[in-house]
C-alpha cells in the first residue's frame, strides 16, 4: 500500500494548517474510505456512503454528456450546412463540443468546489459530496456559448446564498444547479433565452452569419487533425440560407406541432438532433440515466412517475381545451421537446430539495409535471417551464411534508383518545 503510506506521510498538521488539512482530507477520502469503525450504535454498517450515491448519479449523467458534446458540434455544422450526416465529421463535432463544454465544466468545478472547500475549512468539517452532482449538472443545463464570467457569478450566488448560507450539503431549500440557471435567466436573460443562444460558435443565427472558433479549435485540434490527415475546422464558414436557430419549443409556441414538423422529424426530436441545452436533447440517453437511478433506487420512483403523470395529464387536458397552437400539440409530443424528461429525472429527484414523505413525493412530482407544462404552454414570456416549476415546488416541499406529517400525528392522537 504505497499510496496509503504516502498519504499518511504528507498529512498536514490539523492545528497549524487547517485549510491545507481540509483539502488533504477531501482528496484522501476520495482515494480511501477512512478506517473509522462503528462506535456506540450498530456494530456493522451498510457499505453505502454518500460518495457512492453521488458518484452513481454522476455516472447516470455520463450518457447525456457524451451525446450533448457531440450535438453541440452537430448543431454548429448543421447551421453551416456541412457534415449533415450523423456520422460525418465525427471528430470535428466531438472536438468542437469538448472545446465548448470543457471550459464550462472546469470553471464550474473550480468556483463551486473552491467555495465548498472554503466553507468546509471554516466550519471545520469534512468536504461533503454535494457539489459532485451539482457540478456535473450545471454544464448540462447551460447554452454552450455561455460567457464564463456570467457562469462564475451565478455559481457564486447559488452556492453561497443558496447552499452555504443554509448550512451546506443536505440543508439547502432550492436545487443548486437550478438556482445557478435561474440567476442567469433573470440577471442575464439574453444569454439563456431566445432562439440565438442554443447553437454555439456563430455570431448570430441568421443566414450569412459567420462561424468563429476559439484557440482550442485553431491551435490544438487543427494541428492535431492535420497530422492525422483528417478534416480540420474550416477557416471561414457561413450560416446557410433558410436556417433558423429556433428550438422546437418556440416553433411549437408560434406555429403548433406542424411548424415543428416542418423543421425536425419526430426521430430527430426523440434522439436529440435539435438545438437546446447540452444535456436535455437526447431522450434515450436521459432514459438510460433514469433507469440507472431507478434501479439503484437513488432517485425516488414516486417523484419520477408523479412528474410524468402530472405532465401528461396536464398536457392532455390542454389538448382538450386547445385554443392556442401550443395547446394543440399532442400531449405525448410534449415529452419530445425541451427539458421535460431531463428535469423530472435529474432535477426533481434531488432528495434534499424534494419532499421527504411518500405522500409528499407523489404530490411534489405531480405538481412539478403540472406547473412545468402550464408554464411552457400558457406563458408567452418563458419558453420552458421546468426550472421554475421545480424551484417553485422546492419552496413548497416542506409544506407538503408538513401536511403529511400532521396527518400522521393526528392519526396517533386520535388513537390516544379511543
Amino acid at each position, binding site marked *: 500500500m504505497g499510496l496509503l503510506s504516502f498519504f499518511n506521510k504528507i498529512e498536514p498538521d490539523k492545528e497549524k494548517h487547517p485549510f491545507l488539512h481540509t483539502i488533504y482530507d477531501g482528496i484522501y477520502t476520495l482515494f480511501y474510505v477512512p478506517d473509522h469503525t462503528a462506535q456506540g450504535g450498530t456494530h456493522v454498517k451498510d457499505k453505502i456512503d*454518500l460518495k457512492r450515491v453521488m458518484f452513481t448519479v454522476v455516472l447516470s449523467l455520463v450518457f447525456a454528456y457524451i451525446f450533448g458534446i457531440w450535438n453541440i458540434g452537430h448543431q454548429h455544422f448543421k447551421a453551416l450546412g456541412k457534415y449533415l450526416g450523423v456520422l460525418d465529421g465525427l471528430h470535428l463535432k466531438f472536438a468542437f463540443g469538448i472545446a465548448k463544454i470543457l471550459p464550462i465544466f472546469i470553471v464550474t468545478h473550480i468556483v463551486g468546489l473552491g467555495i465548498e472547500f472554503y466553507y468546509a475549512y471554516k466550519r471545520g468539517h469534512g468536504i461533503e459530496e454535494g457539489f459532485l452532482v451539482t457540478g456535473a449538472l450545471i454544464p448540462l443545463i447551460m447554452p454552450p456559448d455561455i460567457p464564463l464570467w456570467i457562469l462564475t457569478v451565478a455559481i457564486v450566488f447559488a452556492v453561497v446564498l443558496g447552499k452555504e448560507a443554509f448550512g451546506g450539503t443536505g440543508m439547502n431549500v432550492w436545487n443548486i444547479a437550478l438556482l445557478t440557471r435561474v440567476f442567469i435567466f433573470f440577471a442575464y436573460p439574453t444569454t439563456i433565452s431566445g432562439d440565438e443562444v442554443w447553437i454555439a460558435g456563430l455570431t448570430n443565427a441568421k443566414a450569412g452569419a459567420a462561424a468563429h472558433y476559439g484557440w482550442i479549435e485553431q491551435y490544438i485540434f487543427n494541428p492535431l487533425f492535420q497530422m492525422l490527415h483528417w478534416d480540420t475546422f474550416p477557416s471561414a464558414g457561413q450560416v446557410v440560407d433558410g436556417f433558423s436557430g429556433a428550438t422546437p419549443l418556440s416553433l411549437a409556441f408560434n406555429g403548433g406541432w406542424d411548424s415543428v414538423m416542418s423543421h425536425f422529424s419526430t426521430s430527430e426530436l426523440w434522439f436529440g438532433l435539435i438545438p437546446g441545452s447540452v444535456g436535455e436533447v437526447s431522450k434515450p440517453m436521459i432514459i438510460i440515466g433514469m433507469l440507472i437511478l431507478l434501479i439503484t433506487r437513488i432517485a425516488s420512483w414516486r417523484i419520477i412517475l408523479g412528474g410524468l403523470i402530472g405532465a401528461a395529464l396536464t398536457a392532455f387536458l390542454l389538448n382538450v381545451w386547445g385554443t392556442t397552437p401550443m395547446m394543440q400539440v399532442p400531449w405525448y409530443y410534449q415529452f419530445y421537446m425541451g427539458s421535460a424528461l431531463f428535469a423530472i429525472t435529474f432535477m426533481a429527484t434531488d432528495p434534499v430539495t424534494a419532499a421527504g414523505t411518500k405522500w409528499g413525493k407523489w404530490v411534489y412530482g405531480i405538481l412539478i409535471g403540472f406547473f412545468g407544462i402550464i408554464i411552457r404552454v400558457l406563458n408567452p414570456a418563458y419558453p420552458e417551464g421546468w426550472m421554475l416549476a421545480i424551484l417553485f415546488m422546492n419552496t413548497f416541499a416542506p409544506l407538503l411534508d408538513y401536511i403529511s406529517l400532521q396527518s400522521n400525528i393526528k392519526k396517533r392522537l386520535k388513537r390516544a383518545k379511543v
Partner: protein
Amino acid sequence: MVPPSLPSYAKGKKVIFLKGGHDLWLTGAPQGKLLDRTVKTYALQPTEFRGMFPIPKVIVEVGEQVKAGQIVFYDREHPEVKFASPVSGEVISINRGAKRSIVEIVIASDNQIDYLPIKAPDLTSISRASLVDFLLETGAWPLINERPYDIIPSKDSVPRDIFISTFNTAPLACDPNIAVNGNGEAFQKGLDVLQLLTPGEVHLGLNANDKVAPADEFLQSKGVKHHWFHGKHPAGNVGIQIHHIAPLGLKDKVWTLTVQQVIQLGKIFTEGRWVADRVVAISGSSVHETGYIRTKSGANIGELLGAVDADARLISGDVLSGTQKLKRNFLNWKHEMVTAIPEGKYNEFFGWLIPSVAGPSDSKTYANYLFPHKQFDGDTNKHGEKRAFVMTHDYDEMLPMDIHLLHLMKSVIVNDYDGMEGLGLKELTEEDVALAEWRCTSKQPLQQLLRRGLNMLREQEI
C-alpha cells in the same frame, strides 16, 4: 401485490405481512449445536437498568456467600424493586465506574447451585396487589420491561397489554424455540402469571417465516392471543409487533418480556426457586466454535465465547443493537446471545467507486440484491463518514411501521417535543431503529438520537 407464499403450518391462519425490512446474513450462525461449556463468574449490572438511582443500595459484601435468588441490591429511589442473584456462590468484587456508580457485582458460582427456597402463592386465589408484592419481594419484578422508554415498571403501573415475541429475526440471533424446549410447563405458568397482571390481553407473536413451525410450547399456550407475522427483520422485534397488534397510544403503557424471561418467571411457581437459566447463542465469524450454551443470566463474556480471534469486537446482544464488551465483562440482563465479529480498522481503496470487496449492504448500487442469501463476515468498519441527512427514502424499507423515521429523528435534533411525541417516538426503542441506522447512507447515529429524544420526553413526565 401477491402475498408471499406461506409455509404449510401457517396456511389458513391470519398472518400479518410486514413489507420491507432486511435480513442481514452473516457468517457464524449458532446452528443448533449445544456446547458443553460451564461459566464460573456471573454478574448483576445495575447501570443497565434504566431510570434507577445511579448508586443502588448493595446489601451483600465482598466475600459473602449468596444463594441463587437471594437479594443482592435494590434501587434507592424505589426500594421495593429488588434484584436477585442468578447463582449461588461468593461475591468476589463490586466494580465501580464513572461517578462511583456500581457497574458490576461479580459472583463466583458454586459448582452445585444452592437455591433459596421460595414459597409461591396459589395463583387461583391471589389478588393482583399481593401478586405484585410477591414479585417485587422475590426479585422477579425486573424481568418485566415497560414501554415506552424500556424501563422497569413502577409498582403501581398497570399495563394495557403484555406482549411477547416468540421469534428473533436479528442477525445470528438466538432461536427461542431451543430455549423453550422442555420448559413448556414453566412457560405456560409464566403466561398465567402475566394474565393476572394486566386487565388487557397477553399477546404472543408467532413466526410464519421459517420452514419449521414454531415450537408446540408456543402454539399450544393457553389464555393468550396468538398473532402470526411474516416478514424480514425487524419482524421479530416486539416493538414492531405491538404496532401491528394494538399500537401504543400516547398515554398507554405496555409490558414486554422475552421468552426466556417468561420461563424464568414461571419457574418461581412451578419449581419454587429463582432459576435464572439462559440459553445463550454464541455466534459471529470471529468465534472459533459457535453454538448454544445453557447458562445463567449475567454470565461472563469471555467464558461464554471461548476461543475468539485476537482482533474481534465482542458484543452482548446482536450486531445491530448490542453492547460492546470486553472479555472480563458480562452478558446483559435481557440479552440471549453474544457475538464476536472482526474489527474493521482498515482503509478501503476507492471503496465508494467499485464493489472491489463485497459486503453486507441493502443499497441497490451493489449487486447484493441478486444474491439475497449470500453470507458475509461483517466487520465493524463504518464504510464512510458521517454526513447530513440527504437520502430521504433510505429508512422507508427498514422500519415496517407507520412512522416517518427521518422526520422523527429531525424533530429530536431540533428538540421538537410535539413532533417527537406525535410522530411516534414512544413506540420505538433502540432495537427497532437499529436496522435503519445500519442502512443509513449518512451514517447518522439513530439509536443515540432516539434515546436522547426518549430521555427528553421522560424527563417531562417525571
